């Protein structure tokens, strides 16, 4: 997708926050703290980060499976929270999802036909023939034989199940697909099949993808823009090439450096990063990454960094990098509203 295309983004998330109340604890789990990004129609936006940083929570918020604690989600320019009745149903149809575990995402007691038909029947009243035709078509799109319709999920392999899941997600001809680690439960040899399929479908239907993953190589391969999350916050965001090519946040750098290359000649990247991701129950103050950061300064321990743009589309939230950038005349620190990130510049 050429980033220059001027259009309202299909999905726009602002200041999204989600806290979970948990038993045995007074503090909530701050699964998502501050999340803002925009996804232009037809592009793929990826969210990466370590386990527990809030990626899945973000997906659930966007899918409307959990109500956000704060912030807004705009779909096609309209605030999702304000939608009601027919509008809400229209929005519902346009956002579908594929989840990580192909075993958990298909009801074992339903036939594939029923699974794929479910979204259709929940929203429309097609005739039997029409329904059959559409099921057959969907199965064809995801590369399953027509007779798959009559079979049960347990008769399929993981890859095939994931195809069924994709068929179901496509049934309502949505505009946005949320892909929560769609391949991480699959075998290496199967992953490529599914990724290629997803890519074909996107091209064919002009779909927009929100991809959640922790395989950085996959993200680089697949996404147009990427957001890096750390403990509920987005710490860096920008076009994939820029973020991967010139990472600004020390966490992004550490993450990229930690990726083991399938090449015995590349040495093991030791000493990039210390310790482990903190607890979402009691995140560190200031910059949440500071306890692990090799270049942390005092400000990191007390103040929360604000996003600093490094190019029109690329920003990172880091005191050190921001200080480094203030030397440059181009990067005027964006004015920050009370406690919220400034909206990054959008295409």
């Amino acid at each position: 997708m050429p980033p220059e295309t001027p259009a309202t983004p299909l999905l726009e998330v602002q200041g999204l926050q989600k806290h979970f109340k948990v038993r045995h604890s007074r503090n909530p789990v701050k699964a998502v703290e501050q999340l803002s990004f925009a996804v232009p129609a037809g592009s793929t936006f990826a969210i990466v980060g370590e386990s527990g940083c809030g990626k899945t929570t973000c997906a659930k918020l966007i899918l409307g499976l959990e109500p956000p604690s704060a912030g807004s989600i705009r779909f096609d320019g309209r605030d999702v929270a304000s939608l009601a009745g027919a509008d809400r149903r229209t929005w519902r149809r346009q956002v579908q999802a594929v989840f990580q575990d192909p075993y958990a995402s298909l009801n074992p007691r339903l036939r594939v036909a029923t699974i794929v038909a479910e979204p259709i029947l929940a929203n429309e009243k097609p005739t039997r023939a029409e329904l059959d035709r559409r099921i057959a078509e969907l199965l064809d799109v995801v590369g399953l034989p027509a007779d798959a319709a009559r079979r049960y999920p347990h008769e399929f392999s993981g890859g095939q199940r994931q195809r069924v899941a994709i068929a179901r997600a496509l049934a309502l001809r949505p505009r946005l697909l949320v892909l929560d680690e769609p391949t991480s439960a699959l075998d290496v040899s199967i992953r490529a099949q599914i990724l290629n399929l997803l890519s074909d479908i996107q091209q064919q239907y002009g779909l927009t993808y929100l991809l959640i993953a922790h395989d950085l190589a996959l993200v680089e391969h697949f996404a147009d823009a990427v957001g890096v999350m750390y403990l509920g916050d987005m710490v860096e965001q920008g076009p994939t090439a820029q973020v991967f090519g010139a990472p600004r946040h020390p966490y992004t750098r550490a993450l990229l450096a930690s990726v083991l290359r399938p090449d015995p000649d590349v040495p093991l990247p030791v000493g990039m990063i210390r310790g482990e991701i903190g607890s979402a129950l009691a995140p560190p103050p200031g910059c949440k990454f500071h306890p692990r950061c090799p270049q942390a300064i005092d400000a990191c321990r007390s103040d929360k960094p604000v996003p600093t743009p490094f190019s029109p589309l690329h920003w990172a939230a880091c005191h050190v990098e921001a200080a480094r950038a203030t030397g440059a005349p181009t990067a005027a620190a964006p004015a920050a509203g009370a406690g919220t990130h400034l909206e990054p510049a959008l295409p």
Partner: protein
Amino acid sequence: MDPLPTAAKPPLLRIRNLQTHIAVRDGTVRAVDGVNLDIAERETLGVVGESGSGKTMTGLSILKLLPRPGGRIAGGSIELDGTDLVGVPEREMARHWRGRRISMVSQDPLTSLNPVYSIGDQVGGPFRYHGLAASRAEARRAAIDVLGRVRIPSPEKRLDDYPHQFSGGMRQRVVAAMAIACQPRLLIADEPTSALDVTIQVQMIDLLRRIQQDTGVGILMITHDMGVAASMCDRIAVMYAGRVVESGPVRRIYHAPAHPYTQALLASIPRLGQARERLDSIGGQPPSLLDPPRGCRFAARCPQRMARCEAEYPPEFETASGHRVACWLHEGAPHAT
């Protein structure tokens, strides 16, 4: 390429024609079906392959901890330091081999530690059973020592803590500590990093490498992550449907894969910094181990399949020193011994 002088060293572990069967309701799963492996001292052998290809079963066969009921070693030999473990009785396995000469780090650090016993109890345990510590206090001291070796900060303070008070990476270190407690000769590491985040994974691999340098332990590294295998192993064995289809020095496997499966595998993974329009994918599914095909097991998915492939399983051909391939494409190369 610089093949390691493996042949010169007497192998620490020598597996020949290992057959491991698991009886299930519908028949017998040939989980491991004629596997040959060698590991020398101070060497790491990576076993890679698809899920279900028999990697874990190979590892468990060495420990003789197959699933009960149903699992058994149906044939072959597993020689460790010259002793064929297949013939060693269970009592002796428990007393003199497991934990003492062979031990294991398993996949999930969250579940590999007993949640209701303290770390000290669990790490100190092996010293007691194997007679390396005469008293509780001695076992404690030994536990502190070994925890220090896996770089748990101030181990003496953490000895009475319980697993849930440790983070995932720390727990995996504790597991490693338990595994190396009695200075085993062979360490079986079954996906020791796959439950860890990338940033922790690096630390864990580094730790294992250091341990190996210090103790000279031979490591059987089971993984499906080609990146992990590349950064950790000296040699690689690629398994497919219960068999080793290719094995050899790590550089040869990555730079000159000889088996179509290995080639396809390497081609199908996205690589950082090498964006491609499309990934190469392998079609189809691996065969069932309940009733594996007679010929080459990859034949059905193989782009270079020949008539012979489906009829007859290829023997191992040695394409270069220590690089063996079970594929008819390499028929010209000499048979491996």
